[in-house]
């Protein structure tokens, strides 16, 4: 294999990895507040992509994306307000099932609001054929956009959860809801906030990956499965871990393509994920002690 070709595989891994990572981050926000995984996270990406494409017909791109983020955030808040808040049972099993139900609903709603056709946002810079040559291999500028926005989100989230009062309150709710309430934190509002925030981030992710991946009403599920996988791999709740997990899986996949048939790409990456889980159930960057304390 020539050195350019190897580099191209690496770039291809980064492209896919950054898509997985930006999807995976969204899972962590709700997890950090509620301790649950939102299986409808992929649908936030889909909604973000779809609405921004619709808005982009009437507004310039940045405004369209901003509007899409707002609309999706409202959907996220509504989901909590109408469903999650009113749940009688809040065990993990029930939460998984409820969010699966929501994901089916959002998907079907999108099918009937829009249609079954595939669409995509225009490339943020350049167009379909522009690419950047780095040491003889090529990468689309949109990938750099994904990486850039992904890093901004991670940085903002890390600061938010570590250093702001709201962020800390949100984390407190995840560790122990009753204790958090005793400290005067309104846990219900924190959960609403986390759904809003994670929908907004999902929408932003959905818009920025749309030129690469294209958007269709059912594109959320496959994105979410990979996003979930990298969130787990990186250690749940850890945004930097999710990014690292995303890049690891992306690279593994693209290097597996170089020796194995493409058809087995997912099988390879998920087998490795399972192996890691069996050896280190708390993920690559999760702390074992913390995950042992979590009430599953």
């Amino acid at each position, binding site marked *: *294999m*020539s050195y350019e*070709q190897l580099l*191209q*595989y690496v*770039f*291809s*891994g980064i*492209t*896919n990895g950054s*898509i997985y990572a930006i999807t995976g981050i969204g899972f962590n926000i709700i997890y950090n507040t509620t301790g649950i995984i939102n299986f409808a996270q992929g649908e936030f990406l889909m909604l973000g992509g779809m609405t921004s494409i619709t808005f982009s017909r009437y507004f310039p791109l940045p405004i369209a994306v901003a509007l899409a983020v707002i609309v999706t955030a409202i959907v996220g808040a509504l989901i909590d307000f109408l469903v999650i808040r009113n749940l009688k049972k809040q065990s993990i099993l029930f939460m998984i099932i409820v969010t699966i139900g929501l994901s089916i609903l959002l998907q079907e709603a999108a*099918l009937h609001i829009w*249609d*079954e*056709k*595939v*669409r*995509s946002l225009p490339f943020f810079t350049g*167009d*379909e*054929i*522009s*690419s950047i*040559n780095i040491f003889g291999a*090529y*990468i*689309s500028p949109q990938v750099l956009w994904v990486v850039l926005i992904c890093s901004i989100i991670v940085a903002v989230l890390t600061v938010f959860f570590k250093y702001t009062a709201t962020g800390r309150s949100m984390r407190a709710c995840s560790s122990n809801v009753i204790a958090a309430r005793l400290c005067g934190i309104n846990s219900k509002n924190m959960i609403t906030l986390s759904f809003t925030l994670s929908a907004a981030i999902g929408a932003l992710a959905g818009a920025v*990956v749309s030129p*690469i*991946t*294209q958007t*269709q009403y*059912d*594109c959320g599920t*496959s*994105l979410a499965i990979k996003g979930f996988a990298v969130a787990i791999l990186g250690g749940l709740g850890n945004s930097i871990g999710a990014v690292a997990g995303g890049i690891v899986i992306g690279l593994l*996949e*693209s290097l597996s*393509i*170089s020796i194995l*048939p*493409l*058809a087995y*790409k*997912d099988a390879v990456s998920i087998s490795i994920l399972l192996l890691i889980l069996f050896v280190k159930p708390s993920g690559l960057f999760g702390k074992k002690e913390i995950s042992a304390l979590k009430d599953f």
Partner: protein
Amino acid sequence: MNFKKFLTVSLSLMVSLFIGISCGDKGGNTIKIGALFSVTGPASFLGAPEQKTAQMLVEEINAKGGINNKKIELIVEDTAGDANKALSLANKLIKENKVLAIIGPSTSGETLKIKELCEKEKVILISCAAAESIVNPVAKYVFKTPQKDSQAAMRIFMTMKDMGIKNVGVVSSGDGFGKGGKEQLEKLAPNYGVTISISEVYDAKATDLTGVLNKLKGKNVEAVINWSIVPAQAIVAKNMRQMNMTALLFQSHGFGNIKYVKETGKAGEGIIFPAGRLLIADKLPDTNKQKALLIKYKTDYEAKFKEDVSTFGGHAYDAIIVIVEAIKKAQSTDKDKVRDAIEGLKDVVGTGGIFNFSAADHNGLDIDAFEMITVKDGKFVPYEKKK
């Protein structure tokens, strides 16, 4: 839960399962035709235009008084791309609705699932799916309207031979359409002096394909053939240009939807693919037999549904034309007579080509049904041999 309660539940359950079953039998004034389309689910980009087309055409025929003074009653069922559901619904159409013929299903997997059933039950099946195995081996009651994969592959290889291309790479989607095409390509390549140095299958929901294209690039292929029907085929075109691949891109007849060209944007320029003449209807000479029908379908469809016409919807259009022509010819709605009539149909103009059925050929299209088409300035134009 005690026994009584359970009995109550079971009885009420039974009653509820019976509810909603139509009493059928509206007399013999209509001709019942069933349709199985994947209107929702992973193959909805096939099923949705097929359903719209079929309903539009049937309305039009009925408005003109139907066939042989009988109206057509089209019963459309959504299979959601699930083969077992297709089987169940096919059973329903056959035994309950007692349809004369079934149009569809949209995908090869579903069609193969119900092929044997239709054969056993002696119900005419006119499939809208591509796989060669639907009509080969020939089953007495099973027909299909989309062009054959083998002929599409031949057209591609003939063009390659003209251009002097010898080393190609194949990528195809991991569904029935991709599989059928891949098999034909691999089988036919040697006949045209073309070597397939690598063949890969990608996921229908793939988001980025630079990795596998890089593998093709490493083999120094002169051209890439992409065989798929899924939206991901637009990603192949974009990724190739982004990676500065100089190889030519050939697509299958699954590219036949202007939507995909719009999706590929500038990256679509210069793609060469075989397709029916629907896409270049306005550029055909007036002497072309298909021209009038194609333009009519295109304008009707685009006016009614405010979306671009695709060759997929055309397969359903052809299926209905075939069954209508056969009923007219047979002057009867007897299944066997209509079936025999289909085998005798000659020179039937459809969107996919001119159909000439026979006992051995249940597809009825020959290689002339295809035209090599290329993309120029975001539009489909006929491909002209460079001299």
